Structures are given as C-alpha cells and as structure tokens.
C-alpha cells in the first residue's frame, strides 16, 4: 500500500517535474508568481547546446542559467499566460534598464551586474520579475555532447558537433550567445562546417561547428571570441 502511495505520489510529482531532473520547468520569479524561461537568440549559447542540430532549439521550458556572459545576447520569456479565461494573454518581459535591451526582447548586459527583467500586466502592475547576473568571460572551453573536450579523435567520414562555452573566473559556464570564429589547422585532414548560420547580428559563426574527418592525420580546431580562444588537437584515423 505504501509502495503504491509512493508510486502514485511520484507519478503526480513527475507531472510537475520534480521526479525527473531532465524536465525543464523554467525559473520561478522573485515574487513567486510566474515562471520564466531562457531563450537562446542565437546558436552560440551553451544553454541550448543539448538541442543543437534540432530545428527549434527553444522548444523547452529552460531554466535561466546561473549567469550570462558580459556582452552576450539572450532572451527571457514568461511561461504560460496570465489573466482570466476570457482575456488570457502572454506578457512580454522587459529590461528595467533600457540599455540592457538594445532590440525588443533581446537582452545584452555590457558589464558585470545584476539586472532585473520584468513581466508587467497591461495595467502596469508587475506580474513578476527575475534577476540575471552577468559575469565576465575569462576563458573558453570546447564541449562535445555536454562534456569538456581536450582532444578529438575522428574516423574518416565521421562527423561531430563541437561547441564552445565561455567560462567565468570560477570556471562556471556562462549563458548567452557570443560571436565565435571557428578555424581548423589543416582542412585536408578535418573539415569544418558551420552548424548554425545564426549568430548575434549575423556576425561571425555560431557557438557550434560540425567537424568531419577527411583523411588520416593530425590537425586542430580553434574557436575564438574576442581575445578568448580555445584550441583542441584533432586526430583522424
């Protein structure tokens, strides 16, 4: 009986996501009323890295990352609709500081800060708000299928998607899309193909690249963003 009750409880809670760590349910706002999700506005955002290659990498209720990279671009949406049954509507999320929102619904924080983003009702009342921390990116990491990569081994004809992730001073991953430039040492050994053409302001490459082994040999792949960079040796067998 106890087992049955526990299983029932877990099933019920699963529907609300607590039994499954995989389900994204957004981030609860400071007022505890609404839930917000992180929106990847471009591919150079590690928060959406687990769905790279899919048609819609924003089709999840993603939690906000602990912090975004200074200068990166991101979006925030309020989950669900607000209001009575007759007038339910989606609320837009806006930056408190206008300069943090260079384009509507696209946010960029240009220095380390704690910035607030507010979902307001048409009456002007605040429905809820979230705090986003922006930290300086001081290092970069190459990631393959969610795991940090120090060397890449490929077979001839094999393809993988490699991502670049900015890190803060404590080594924590930072959300938000940065512009990247990818290059390979010897394209007769390994060939790169831009995975997503979209990046902030269509400038540079996305945060991920598709690499294909062309012929046996050694080479490297490099991602650069401003003065930051990461280089990974590649061995093709």
């Amino acid at each position, binding site marked *: 009986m106890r087992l049955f009750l526990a299983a029932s409880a877990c099933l019920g809670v699963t529907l609300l996501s607590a039994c499954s760590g995989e389900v994204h349910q957004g981030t609860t706002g400071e007022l505890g*009323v609404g839930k917000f999700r992180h929106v990847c506005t471009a591919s150079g955002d590690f928060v959406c890295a687990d769905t790279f290659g899919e048609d819609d990498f924003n089709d999840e209720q993603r939690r906000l990352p602990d912090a975004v990279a200074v200068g990166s671009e991101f979006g925030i949406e309020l989950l669900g609709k607000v209001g009575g049954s007759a007038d339910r509507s989606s609320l837009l999320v806006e930056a*408190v500081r206008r300069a943090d929102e260079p384009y509507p619904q696209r946010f*960029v924080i240009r220095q380390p800060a*704690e910035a607030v983003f*507010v979902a307001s009702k048409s009456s002007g*009342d605040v429905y809820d708000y979230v705090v986003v921390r922006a930290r300086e990116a001081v290092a970069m990491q190459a990631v393959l299928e969610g795991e940090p990569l120090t060397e890449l081994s490929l077979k001839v004809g094999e393809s993988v998607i490699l991502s670049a992730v900015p890190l803060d001073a404590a080594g924590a991953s930072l959300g938000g899309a940065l512009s990247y430039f990818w290059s390979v040492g010897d394209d007769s050994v390994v060939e790169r193909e831009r995975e997503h053409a979209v990046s*902030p302001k269509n400038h540079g490459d996305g945060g991920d690249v598709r690499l294909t082994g062309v012929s046996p040999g050694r080479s490297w792949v490099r991602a650069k*963003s*401003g003065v*930051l960079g990461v280089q990974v040796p590649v061995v093709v067998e």
Partner: protein
Amino acid sequence: MKCSESKLKLSLKRRGLLVCLALGGGLVSQACYFGEVTADFEVVSTLLEGQSFSNDELVLIEGQAMTLEYVVSRNGNEKTWKVIPIDPDSNVVDVHNATERNQFVVTGREPGNLEISFRVRDKRWYTRRKDRLQVTVLSRGDWEPSAESNGGAGGAGGAAP
C-alpha cells in the same frame, strides 16, 4: 439685569459647556477608537549587490528592482488598507503594484535621486497618512574588461546597437 436675561445667559453657558464636553468627549473617544496608526516598509525581496534599505531611504543600482511591503498597523494590529504608491514622472524610478496586496516593486531605471510616497486610506474612518521614501539609484559605474576577457567591444556581444 432682569431675571429672564440671567436665566438666558446661564442657559447659554450651560449649552456651551455641554458642546465643549461633547466635542472633547468625541475627540477622546475618537482617539481611543482609532488608536495609534503606524506604517513600516519591509523589504521582501533578496537584497542584490549594492542595495540597501532603511525605513526612509532606499538605495539600488540602475537596472535593479526591490520589492517592498507597506505594513500599516493600528493598535498593533496589521491592517489591509488600500495603499496607493506615488512616483514622480521620471526616468529614474518607477513604483509598480505587485500581485500581492500592499507589495510594491521599485525599479531603478537610471541613476538619480528622488522621493516616492505611499498614501494609505482607511475607507471607513478616513484615516489618512502619507509616507515618503527617498530613493537613490546608483550608476553601474565604469567598467573595463580584464586583459584576458572578451567582455568589451573586441568580439563578444556582437549585438551592440
């Protein structure tokens, strides 16, 4: 003086005394009924970096927000009277009602300093009061990316307007 005049004067004096007594009694009873009304601000959000609050001054950094609850009490009993926030028409600070009754979100839009106020009214007995709060919004300050970072115009943040 005629007797009737003296009676009239006495009667007027008595009436005046009664009016005074009635007014005084009314005031005393009213004061006793209303009791002492107090109002306090409480911060209900987690204080962010650079934020501070005392009962008459609030400091936050531009781009931040703080949630305040305005607590009105009479004779020590918390009242749910209607509170109306008043913010001057400025780009510095906005005060918005939150969904929770008598909670307000103060947002710092631009650096500056101004006064906001909260007006409270008890509908039944017309107890009114207005409490003021000085708000200071600080600038985020100048910032230069460290040499090894890409926080500046170098490459990251291609979305510059």
